[in-house]
């Protein structure tokens, strides 16, 4: 009778352990405080808004797009993204960037722009990628 619990228990414990490990390794926290973003040594998802006054730089040759982002408290950080400017970037009310803060700026691997308009409800734009 114990075989059932032995096998089932073994698999569950094994995978749950593996899962907890991977989860703590690869989970991405949403962070709206840039002080914390800068201290964090893992990949985070920083939410804030584009600092319009500081403009953006689009280097078409090297496909680098960079801009400044501010959090709720007005803390700013520079964001650098390897790719082209996302659609709707200029009209975006809020920006969600996923990446890591290193060497004085935020290395974004993806940018999500949200364009809430009081007339059309909220719409989001994202570049979706699949790994399979």
């Amino acid at each position, binding site marked *: *009778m114990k*075989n*059932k619990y032995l*096998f*089932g228990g073994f*698999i*569950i414990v094994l*995978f*749950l352990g*593996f*899962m907890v490990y*991977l*989860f703590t390794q*690869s*989970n*991405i*926290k*949403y962070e709206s405080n840039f002080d914390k973003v800068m201290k964090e040594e893992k*990949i985070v*998802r920083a*939410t804030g808004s584009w600092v319009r*006054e500081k*403009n*953006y*730089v*689009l*280097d*078409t*040759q090297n496909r680098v797009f960079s801009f400044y982002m501010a959090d709720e408290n007005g803390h700013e950080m520079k964001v650098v993204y390897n790719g*082209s400017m996302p*659609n*709707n970037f200029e*009209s975006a009310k809020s920006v*969600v960037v996923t990446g890591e803060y290193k060497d004085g700026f935020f290395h974004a691997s993806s940018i*999500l722009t949200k364009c809430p*308009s*009081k*007339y*059309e*409800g*909220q*719409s*989001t*734009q*994202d570049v*979706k*990628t*699949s*790994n*399979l």
Partner: protein
Amino acid sequence: MIGSLILTLALASSIVAMVMYYMSYRGYNNALYYGRIAYHVMAMLVIVAAAMLEYLLLTHQYSFKYVYEYSSNELSTGILMASFWGGQEGSFMLWLFLTTIIGLILQSYTSKRGDLEHRVMAVFTLATSFILLMVSPLFKNPFVYLWSEPIFIGIKSINPSLAHLPFLQSFLFSDSSSNQEFVKVNSDLVRLLSTNGISIKQLVINGRGLNPQLTNFWMQIHPPILFTGFSMSTVPFCFAMAAMMKNDYKDWVKQSFPWLLAASGILGLGIMLGGYWAYEMLGWGGYWAWDPVENSSLIPWLVGVAGIHTLLVQKKSQNKGEGIGKFAKTNLILMLLMYILVVYSTFLTRSGVLGDASVHSFVDPGTIVYLFLIIFVGTFVVLGFGTLIYRWKYLSLHTKSDEGILSRELSLFTAAIVLCTSAAIILVGTSAPIFGHSVDAKFYSSMHIPIAIIIGLLNGLSLLLKWRTTKKEDLIKRSVFSISASVIVTVLIVLFGGMTDVLMMILTLTTTFALIVNLEIAIKIIKGNKKMLGAYVAHIGIAVFLLGVISSSVYSREKDIDLVKNVPQDAFGYKMVFTGYQSIDNNTKYAFNIKCTNGKKDFVVSPVMYISDYNNGLMREPAIFNMLTKDFYISPLGYDDGSQNQTQGQEISLGVGDKTNFDGAVITYKNFIAPKDMSVMMSGGDFQLGAELSIEKNGKTYNEQALMKKDGRDIQFIPIEIKDANLKIQLQKIDPSTQKANLIFAKITGDNSSASTPKEVLTIQASTKPFINLVWTGTLIMVFGFFISVSRRLKESFL
């Protein structure tokens, strides 16, 4: 109004049916008759309501909010019909409609099998009552009028002959950022209109339309199939409850078996069609992105499939006279969980909790709906597991469990546990956003490699093992062929395919092992009773599917390529030439033609891009060239017609007073050079404007003007070249209202490309997907296997 009334009446009938069926269960025998009548009345009302919603959509009745928000005059009939389930309210209606139909079949099914009906239907009508409550006027009613809440309607949807009405002007709004005009429709406007003898139908003559990602063939079949699967998974829950209510665990196993198989088969088909849709139309570059919405349909499927395996054991063990059979508790738990997870996945995708995490979750529906969904899930959890706890002692006393190490029972149980583990992992990952976290796709993929390895192993091993116990010598004798054959095949794949990842090699080994074992058995019995084939066919399907996953992911190659018009480029053995684009679909979309050749075959692929009116977003559709052994997959990334970007370099956007650095120079935007006469510019005459810049480099300061000149029809940007500073500056864009200027900076030397003529560049992501066809054929074979089993188990359910 009539629609809401019908749905309210249906809700009342559903509650009456539930009460009557429950009374009948408690011994009031004549209540059964009223229960049946009430259920059929409810079913009729639901069918009428669904037909009404479809009619409103087909006849463009924009006075209804749902019709306005999810359809438009431009949609083709097929898509228009599918816009029924384009939004939240409608997809609840679809779920309700399909559940109701399933209920009709279930009522007839249970009425022919003993005293099953009242218990099963009492629980089933609880489920229909909840969905009916969801679409009732309290929550997500699809029959709400347009003006029920103030709504801004784009001027494009307004009848132009009425737009000049004087009283309408105070309802006009304009959005300065997008330059669009809107009419605010609320009850005041409707009242004003009706006093002037105008109906809202005359004012609003077009709808907002359907999200362009949904306007395609797959929208017409994927949601109905998926929701049929969801609806059918209600049934095993009801059977489990019915068994616990009577405290009799014998018959429910064979009675619910065909339902569980059919539900899993259809749900699996629906999930796969969704994956194919994503692959073919949405250009994600693959068929599975571990998106929360995809995940939340996969979780109940995995639990259902786990249940199939343990339910089979209980059935076998009952046939051998072992009382209520083995794994009685496991089966009850799994059957309860399957439906609870369907409801939970509805909660995840509809309550707005996923917010930022998913691209295609619905928008926030408000706190009341959120709470209602929690109550919906909570009720079924409490009811299901409460009853189970109540019966636990009895069940523990009457369940036999003495599985030998080498028994089929134990290996099937282990398989079920592995499937549930997979479900649990996906559940944790998908639910993480509720707690402010989110996981990477890597989390799911690295967890699932070992799971797939075990599944492959058990898939083969469990069939080599006998029920109860197997002698070691027997097992060795029976597995010699399959093990040696799979080792040989794997070695060949590794050697010829150049596989390097050890885990992938093990996965290939266990998968081919499963495939060979199943093929061996299938060939043996194909001459005999073909009805017995179901399980083997399904297992062959899953093995083929896994092989497809391995080959299409491990051997997939991917590359971003800039295709300059008429300049050939090489990638993955193909020579590609971008030959130009043409407009398609009544000039709404653009197809970009790429001529490909690999020496033997010539073909043209045409990915599509367009700006959608719906959301002003850039839409991209991939192009796929299908071959037997692989797909050549091209996702468009962007297109540059070359007219603006003559200068290669760095683009920087500046406001007056801003400073920037480029190549050691400090550039200051000192002043905006305004046109001398604003009115000339407004009237379309010639003018010039620009930015006055000061450039400091190597201790020298240069004052320059970057200008834009309009001369007749031409607009010219005049570049600045400062040879001493090795710097070239050109205005790209300047906005007179904000005075913001976009400037392109480049070095004069070392930048030859800037001198050339305008270039049209199409940027694409090209990839190869070897043997991706195995993914599709594998799933189809698996689904086919499910249905062979359904027909066999349906016959047994009468016994």
